[in-house]
């Protein structure tokens, strides 16, 4: 193993690592917000929307992320370009977009579907009496959700959210195919000219392992910190 290569590689990796983080964190935040909205619509059985979202969730959970990513990276810009040509608008800078937008869009859409299932089961774990009790003391529905239901559901969802986040970090490796230089893409490009795949992949494998270890620990700490809110639920 060429340790010189590794020593030179590590400091250069910062921007790639930043991209990996940005992709994972932004799609986690956006995806979880969307997932929460989907979960609320589905648990409250909002008429047509709930049906549509059921199909959406089933579709997004079944289709491999890489296909969704290719769709946002290759197909969507093409469609936009067609549209713009038709309307006589300029089409430069549409294809080959190497910004983080495409992978984040794809991962947000898929994360929304996966996390909505987690949130839905967390919401359904809170007995409906709680909502009624909250309303009986004069809270509005929104107040009841934010003060009574969400804090308890959050504690239930937290362990799964940890798993989802680690999944996002792993899945961000696919952003390499959207022209984004994140950790995997960086390693691949750096190793290709001299065929030093061993060194490059050794480093990033360790990095991914370290990230998943750190974040699973972090979420366990969070679980423990919020665990005290749990007592109320178990008693029912």
């Amino acid at each position, binding site marked *: 193993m060429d340790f010189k290569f590794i020593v030179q590689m590590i400091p250069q990796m910062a921007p790639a690592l930043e991209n990996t983080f940005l992709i994972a964190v932004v799609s986690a935040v956006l995806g979880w917000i969307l997932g929460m909205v989907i979960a609320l619509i589905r648990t409250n059985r909002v008429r047509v929307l709930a049906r549509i979202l059921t199909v959406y969730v089933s579709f997004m959970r079944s*289709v491999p992320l890489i296909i969704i990513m290719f769709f946002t990276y290759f197909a969507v810009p093409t469609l936009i370009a067609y549209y713009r040509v038709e309307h006589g608008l300029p089409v430069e800078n549409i294809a080959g977009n190497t910004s983080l937008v495409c992978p984040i869009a794809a991962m947000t859409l898929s994360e929304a579907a996966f996390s909505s299932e987690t949130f839905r089961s967390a919401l359904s774990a809170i007995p409906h009496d709680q909502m009624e009790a909250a309303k009986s003391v004069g809270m509005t529905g929104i107040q009841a959700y934010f003060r009574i239901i969400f804090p308890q559901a959050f504690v239930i969802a937290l362990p799964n959210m940890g798993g989802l986040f680690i999944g996002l970090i792993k899945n961000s490796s696919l952003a390499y195919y959207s022209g984004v230089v994140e950790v*995997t893409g960086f390693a*691949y490009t750096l190793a290709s000219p001299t065929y030093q795949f061993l060194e490059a992949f*050794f480093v990033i494998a360790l990095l991914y392992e370290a990230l998943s270890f750190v974040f699973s620990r972090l979420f366990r700490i969070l679980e423990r910190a919020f665990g005290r809110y749990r007592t109320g639920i178990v008693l029912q």
Partner: protein
Amino acid sequence: MGNYFDFSKIPGLMASTMQAFPTTVKLVVWSLIFSLLIGLAFASLALSGNKVLNAVAKGYVAFMRGMPTLVLIFILYFVVPVYLKKAGINTDSWSKDMFIIITLSLSSAANMAEMMRSSYLAVNRYQWEAAYSVGMTGFDVFRRIIFPQAFGVAIPILGNNIVALFKATSLAFSIGALDLFGKVKLISGRLYGLNRAELYLGVAVIYWVVCVLLEWATKRAEKRYTRGRKALTV
């Protein structure tokens, strides 16, 4: 969408994509068999009661949990053959499908090991004692009492794992194997990128239909298998 998204093109494109379906099935089936075998080995280590062996199994599962499948494919395809060659094993004649099967078997084995371990532990250990008390012996107890109950617990997890495995085969294109998505990339290249949206939507629908069918089959199998067993698992 106007005339640049042509729904009538989708069925034809899906038909061409489906030519690669046997390859995907082959990848799933072989990876499933090997991951079950490797998973069984690690589950036995985890349940052996030996601290060192247990740590080995746990370490393997944790390692695979943290490793992106794409990175594992790259490692096994680009790195490992170099060292195998040094050890006297030439991998030049190995097909790309084979590397994908190896990768998916190794990564899925972690899930399979966890599945087996947790379903084994889900069966009440008094069942062992009850079986011993009526005169059954070691492996007989496992085969006739423990395994049938553990299997019922494992069916839904197994279904999930198979779906995950099926979805993971979509990464085979990364080293140029011709599974469903590899075929899509090939077609896309032949069409010079035309009708990409229709092509991707078509393959997405294929994946969707197969996953829904797999989920349905799992549910049915579970219902069938656990019928009348409820009393046992309590």
